[in-house]
């Protein structure tokens, strides 16, 4: 097992400090939204975790392509790590969204296109681990896993664009000219907190994927020593 890289230690500290700073920014320096009240503040981390989850699944697909092209096991570790962290971020997005929805929509869950596609995306990536656990040889596991994450990545644009493709009650956050009417009108401080949340969750994502990658590396070494 290699020594922990100093860049990873820096990333650890930076993630914790920036997460705390952004949390303080959201709680104490962003204005309270008029119609939703304080629960609207959950939106910053809700969107950021959904963004992190989707980014992680795209990274997993890219790593899958990397494995199929080079056949180097390190791409499989990256793919596995990205899917696992992406699932955690996706779960956070779903749960925080449910908590927001309860007072705003008066229900925890509704079979809205965005919520449904997000749930399908999570289940598909959860099945990735079931697939892997059913395969004994590391080569088969890596090859089929790579194909699976490449095919599964279609759920990411489907989830992202679901609020534009279908009739939905889910708010549109990143708006263009066509759907700007249903978008949030953010004040400069709200926008700052929103962008800061996206940045800090991307950093946390990189940090966690790196740690998970190192764990996969260690587990692989053990597997090789046993066999």
């Amino acid at each position, binding site marked *: 097992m290699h*020594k922990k890289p100093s860049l990873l230690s820096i990333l650890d500290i930076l993630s914790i400090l920036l997460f705390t700073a952004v949390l303080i920014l959201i709680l104490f320096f962003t204005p309270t939204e008029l119609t939703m009240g304080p629960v609207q503040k959950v939106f910053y981390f809700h969107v950021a975790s959904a963004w992190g989850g989707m980014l992680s699944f795209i990274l997993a697909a890219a790593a899958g392509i990397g494995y199929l092209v080079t056949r180097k096991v390190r791409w499989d570790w990256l793919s596995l790590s990205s899917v696992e962290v992406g699932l*955690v971020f996706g779960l*956070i997005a779903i749960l925080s969204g449910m*908590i*927001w929805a309860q007072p705003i929509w008066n229900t925890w869950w509704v079979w809205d296109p965005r919520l449904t596609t997000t749930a399908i995306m999570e289940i598909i990536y959860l099945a990735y681990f079931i697939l892997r656990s059913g395969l004994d040889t590391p080569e088969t596991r890596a090859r089929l896993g790579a194909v699976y994450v490449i095919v599964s990545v279609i759920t990411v644009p489907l989830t992202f664009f679901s609020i534009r493709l279908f009739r939905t009650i889910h708010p549109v956050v990143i708006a263009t000219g066509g759907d700007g009417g249903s978008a949030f009108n953010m004040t400069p401080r709200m926008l700052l907190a929103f962008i800061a949340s996206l940045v800090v969750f991307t950093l946390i994502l990189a940090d966690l994927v790196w740690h998970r990658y190192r764990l996969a590396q260690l587990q692989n070494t*053990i597997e090789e020593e046993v066999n």
Partner: protein
Amino acid sequence: MFPNTMSNMILGFGVIVGFLLLYVLSLVVRFRRAKINRGISDKTS
């Protein structure tokens, strides 16, 4: 007057921070278990 959704906000942030910490904890536990399995005592990781 804002609607009183303070408790929902606290629950929301609690769940977000809680799940992140839980995942970090799971990584720590799995790292330790893997190191024990390998029989090394690398305290640098």
